[in-house]
């Protein structure tokens, strides 16, 4: 397949990565989780947005931190498991009202392995979300929200942009505070906070004024009640459906039904609501065959893992030494297939200008 010189729709990457995360949540096989991490990392390496590598690294660090905390907690306040003892920590005596809590004491290998697999699973979820962030800037996602949600998207974009400005003004004011050393301790906090809050208020008003003069929030048409009910109810169903699917204990059928029904209701509601807005999007993202491909690969992997888990639960939750289940491993490897066909994004306009014509 030839690759067009354009960026993939951000939603395709997010769907792919989130399904990969969902697949990871279905297994405790450490090797399988490692393969999923490797696939996510490979995709970021080949298809990451500019600056995506830096974002991904932050998520990897967070994941490592979570893993460490998980294991340390298991060792310090877990305990009480059965099996071979790995460590014998001195046990702290706790007062009577805290019976049931154990600090220290004998730690079994089982405990440590459970902490490790648990932490690994959580870490993999975090890394998958990190991959989504690194593959497509979430702000691009906001730009392609349905028209009815335009105001919410704008608010989030503005808030993201305002944060660094707020940090800058706080630093400036902190430096200025050295010029008037306030002796009274009571006033010291006010000395710092009052100008920061004033400045933030000024900024907000200036921004509101600028947005208003540029036509933001022009009068809208009437919104009818059923449109609201449809979109809100749809969203609720989607949330419930996702919850049921991820939980997995009730089987997948009710979850899938709720998700599908919710999506349809929300789509109809949002479309009807959007008809009242006369807002358009500059350089809209396009959804074409490649996007379908990437999204379907993500969904396919999740479906395959769910199916394998249903047929042979033991293969995804090994009890002894982890060994990769052949089928599941193959399924996860398929998730890497967009490396071969997804467009890698247009070259930057600067590079285009440098190229001899």
């Amino acid at each position, binding site marked *: 397949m030839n690759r067009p010189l354009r960026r993939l729709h951000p939603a395709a990457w997010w769907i792919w990565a989130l399904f990969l995360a969902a697949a990871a949540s279905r297994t405790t096989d450490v090797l399988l989780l490692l393969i999923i991490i490797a696939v996510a990392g490979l995709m970021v390496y080949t298809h990451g947005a500019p600056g995506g590598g830096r974002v991904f690294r932050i998520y990897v660090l967070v994941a490592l931190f979570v893993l460490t905390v998980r294991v340390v907690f298991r060792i310090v306040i877990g305990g009480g498991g059965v099996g071979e003892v790995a460590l014998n920590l001195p046990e702290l005596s706790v007062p009577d009202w805290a019976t049931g809590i154990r600090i220290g004491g004998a730690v079994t290998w089982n405990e440590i392995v459970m902490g490790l697999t648990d932490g690994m699973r959580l870490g993999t979820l975090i890394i998958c979300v990190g991959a989504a962030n690194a593959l497509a800037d979430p702000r691009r996602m906001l730009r392609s929200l349905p028209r009815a949600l335009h105001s919410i998207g704008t608010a989030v974009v503005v808030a993201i942009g305002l944060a660094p400005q707020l940090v800058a003004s706080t630093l400036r004011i902190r430096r200025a505070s050295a010029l008037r050393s306030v002796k009274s301790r009571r006033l010291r906090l006010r000395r710092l906070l009052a100008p920061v809050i*004033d400045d933030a208020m000024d*900024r907000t008003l200036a921004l509101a004024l600028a947005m208003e003069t540029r036509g933001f929030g022009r009068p809208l048409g009437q919104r009818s009640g059923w449109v609201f009910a449809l979109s809100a109810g749809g969203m609720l169903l989607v949330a419930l459906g996702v919850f049921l699917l991820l939980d997995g204990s009730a089987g997948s059928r009710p979850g899938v039904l709720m998700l599908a029904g919710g999506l349809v209701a929300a789509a109809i509601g949002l479309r009807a609501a959007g008809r009242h807005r006369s807002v358009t999007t500059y350089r809209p993202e396009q959804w074409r065959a490649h996007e379908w491909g990437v999204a379907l690969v993500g969904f396919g992997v999740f479906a395959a893992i769910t199916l394998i888990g249903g047929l042979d639960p033991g293969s995804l939750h090994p009890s002894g030494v982890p060994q990769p289940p052949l089928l599941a491993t193959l399924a996860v490897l398929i998730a890497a297939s967009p490396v071969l066909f997804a467009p890698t994004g247009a070259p930057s306009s600067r590079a285009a200008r440098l190229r001899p014509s």
Partner: protein
Amino acid sequence: MIRFTDYSITYSTADIPTLSHVDMGIEEGHLCLVTGPTGSGKSTLLGAINGLVPHFTGGRVSGSVVVAGRDIRDTVPGAMADLVGYVGQDPQRGFVAETVEYELAYGMEQAGLDPATMRARVEETLDIIGIAHLRDKHLMDLSGGEQQRVAIGSVLTVHPRILVLDEPTSALDPAAAEDVLAAVTRLVHDMGLTVVIAEHRLERVIQHADQVVLIERSGAVMSGDPRSVMESSSVVPPVVELGRAVGWDPLPLTVRDARVRARELQEGLEAPPVEPIVAGPVVASAERVSVTYGRVVAVRDVTLDLRRGEVTVVMGRNGSGKSSLFWALQGSLRPDSGAVAASGTVGLVPQTPADLLFLGSVEAECDQADTDAGQDSGTCRELLDEIAPGIPRDSHPRDLSEGQRLALVLATQLVARPDIVLLDEPTRGLDYAAKESLTDVLHRLAADGKAVVLSTHDVEFAALVADRAVVMAEGEVVADGPVSGILTGTPLFAPQVARVMAPLPLLTVRQVEEAIA
């Protein structure tokens, strides 16, 4: 195009109207300059054009404003966006998007234009404003002049017929201001846009104006062609002041007009000898000071002596390291190399004086400053009355004018009796009268034996106030010497009077008068 009919507005917090009985029109395709003292209602007049006043600000209005046939009473600012492009005082605070390209598109997205049109208009606007090279840049990474041009471009994309600019050059260095004004005049000449500009520094804009609207503090408004308004105006650029002083008729409005007349004046005048700066002993000295932020070098190897009784002005582009040098001289910024040795205390008024104010009234701020400096109660108030008499004691610091707020912060810094007084861009937002009184204050401080250092983009102010000028570029000191020598040396920094009187090194109207006498 724009018609004010018996228009008055009174804000809810004020007893007297900000604008009263305005009757005037602005022709299509004209560049109209709105001027007047600080707080006289320039911004109010601009806001009335697209309905921000009173729809956004509140206030009681009588009379009417009709813009291209639309009465602003019947509409809201958002619905005027396709007709009036409005750029506020601090464009950076109004940015909505992340990068230049998407910022330009924002207004069109709101207007609901189709993607193909948007794409074409963004390209067209990038070229018209001359910012095509900035397309992918993050808005936070732009310089002041670039920000201003992007802000103008971002309202042009919806093809308005009127462009309203509120002090577009007040924060800019002379070169950046030239860039912005050149872009604006091109819009008037090539595209027939009607432009309304509010500006303190008349010398920057008046030569481009077709019409001048003068707002007096009383709220009365005078409108007419530039020459007739300038004849009776209370705020005039230096070249007009010079014309009045030597009795030229008709009054020259531009340096070019005045130069023709100046030839006869120059005959018989002799160049005054360049007097060496008479100043006291060195009170602070910077020795090969460098300041870096990460990989950016803000100040590079600067060596500078400050003397008692001397007023020094530091000039240079935005980002040339002036503020960092000030903070290093003040002592709270540790230089990465080199050292600052001061044999006295330092007071500093930062670029945003409001950063230092945190209490509810002028009186509370003054008392707090006295307590913190260990001075007798009332010291700060006395200083404040000397600098800017007549500020009500119970007024809130945020309600003060720019000049009054500057005076209050300066007073709180002077309470500790510093030997060195640093002011970082004190002239932003000050009108001619406020600049004149600031000049007097700084001269008095110098006469008291303090070393005064200030940075400014305003060459006219520098000529009035300073004995010595230091020019910085890329963190280095590129020129340092008596102000008459430095300011006449380069055309970019030369004040109007110096350009008129060249080659004689006369900088201010007073110097010319003295030379004649």
